[in-house]
């Protein structure tokens, strides 16, 4: 009789311990090819070293800066001031002008890891170059860029308006040209500190998923390794914290100018003086050493994620 009681109680316990031995792995952020057609993989050709525009050809290249919600519009202003998730709408823009032929302009935009092709034209009004570039329009967040830059000036000033009805339908930007160069020596300068301290936070806003992978904070050890320079060994990696491994892996992408989808990562790497979010696909540019390190780091990252603080393995 007493035995039956024990069985009964244990069956109740059983119901609650499904994931007691393992945590479910999170979808990992990895730079991926979005589209493989030629148009979608264009990069600026024959970029001049001039950061000041003396000639139309100086406009070819990466123009980067903040992609700010347009607070001149009252609706947007109110939203940015009151909504709790408004901070997620501050983004960085890489407006890449890839080639100019006649008055036709071809380029692409990179915002939060999303790359969209740009097509349009320009005209010279006085000593100002006036541009109108359009995104294709088959994506909910497509819109048009209108901007000007004066001769002998170094700053593009403009606006962006969405084609569709979205929360932040108008943005402003001030961009400067950068000559992006990959440098494996770029070292981490600050610690990654996760303000939320949440394990995983998946938010949906206007059907755009923000996947935030939260891995607490990095330790001092993260500064000891440059994952693009030195081949990491198991002994180097096995005792690192989850955050250390996570940042070491993502720093490889950051050195290549990857524009992160994750806001936490995007904000963190912007703290590093050498980082520019300019590309959405850098997989082909990874060196053999970097690929090796990524593979090892992913293995230990998954292991830490699934088994670090649970009972089983």
């Amino acid at each position, binding site marked *: *009789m*007493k035995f039956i*009681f*024990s069985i009964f*109680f*244990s069956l109740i*316990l*059983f119901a609650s*311990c499904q994931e*007691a*031995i*393992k945590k479910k792995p999170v979808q990992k952020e990895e730079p991926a090819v979005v589209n493989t057609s030629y148009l979608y993989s264009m990069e600026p050709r024959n970029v001049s070293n001039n950061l000041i525009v003396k000639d139309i050809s100086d406009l070819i290249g990466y123009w980067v800066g903040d992609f700010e919600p347009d607070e001149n519009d009252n609706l947007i202003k109110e939203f940015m001031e009151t909504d709790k998730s408004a901070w997620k709408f501050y983004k960085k823009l890489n407006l890449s002008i890839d080639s100019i032929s006649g008055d036709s302009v071809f380029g692409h935009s990179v915002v939060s890891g999303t790359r969209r092709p740009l097509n349009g034209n320009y005209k010279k009004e006085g000593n100002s170059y006036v541009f109108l570039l359009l995104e294709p329009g088959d994506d909910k967040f497509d819109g048009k860029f209108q901007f000007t830059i004066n001769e002998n000036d170094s700053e593009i000033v403009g606006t962006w308006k969405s084609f569709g009805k979205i929360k932040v339908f108008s943005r402003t930007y001030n961009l400067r040209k950068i000559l992006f160069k990959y440098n494996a020596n770029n070292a981490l300068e600050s610690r990654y500190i996760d303000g939320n301290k949440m394990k995983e936070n998946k938010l949906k806003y206007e059907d755009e998923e923000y996947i935030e992978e939260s891995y*607490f904070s990095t330790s001092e050890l993260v500064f000891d390794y440059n994952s693009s320079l030195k081949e990491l060994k*198991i002994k180097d990696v*096995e*005792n*690192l*914290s989850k955050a250390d491994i996570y940042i070491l892996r993502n720093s490889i992408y950051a050195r290549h100018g990857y524009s992160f989808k994750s806001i936490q990562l995007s904000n963190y790497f912007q703290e590093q003086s050498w980082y520019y979010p300019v590309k959405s696909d850098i997989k082909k540019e990874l060196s053999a050493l970097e690929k090796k390190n990524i593979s090892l780091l992913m*293995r*230990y990252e*998954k*292991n*830490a994620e699934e*088994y*670090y*603080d*649970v*009972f*089983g*393995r």
Partner: protein
Amino acid sequence: MVLTINKRDVKWVVFYLCLLYFTYLMVLITLQYVPINFDVAFLRIKQEQIVYMHYKIAFFSHVYSSIFVLLAGFTQFSEHLRKRWRIVHRVGGYLYLFLILIVAAPSGFIMGIHANGGLSSKIAFCILSILWSVFTFKAFLSALRSDFKAHRAFMYRSYALTLSAITLRAWKWLIINVFETAPIDTYKIVAWLGWVLNLLVIELYLRIDRKG
């Protein structure tokens, strides 16, 4: 029918409940390795070791046998069962003996040589497998010569070490959730803490039991 529950019963119910729960978790862990897969769970961070045939054999024989060794705890400690169905105690006992001496302990020793966490962990696991074998064997010998007091004492020691599979993981869970220590540092601690404490507790219990 009158149901009386006394203190002794409560102790046993608690013991079996805990054992049932943790055995269930151990079953879940074991099932991760069924069917044979060289790149799953713990093996994902043993890629340098799993290339060796002797490690492959040691690892899988250890994982597949240990769950049954653990299950012995359900049958062997029941006085009622031992008196009413002697054959179950006998068969269970021999199963326990052979699985440990021939499979689980030797394979544990081989894995111990390849343990993560440096020399300290390797020594810990190797000593564990040796003591496990010695206690189990001495328990067997005592039963053969009908010295059941010694038989019980050595089997308590042996099973205390069997339970280290559970206590090691429980300590890891506790230490990491409280201190958030680095993974290998934690592993070095639990490689010892996971079984030494079990032995100390059982020795203490045996001494008190002897006096009482």
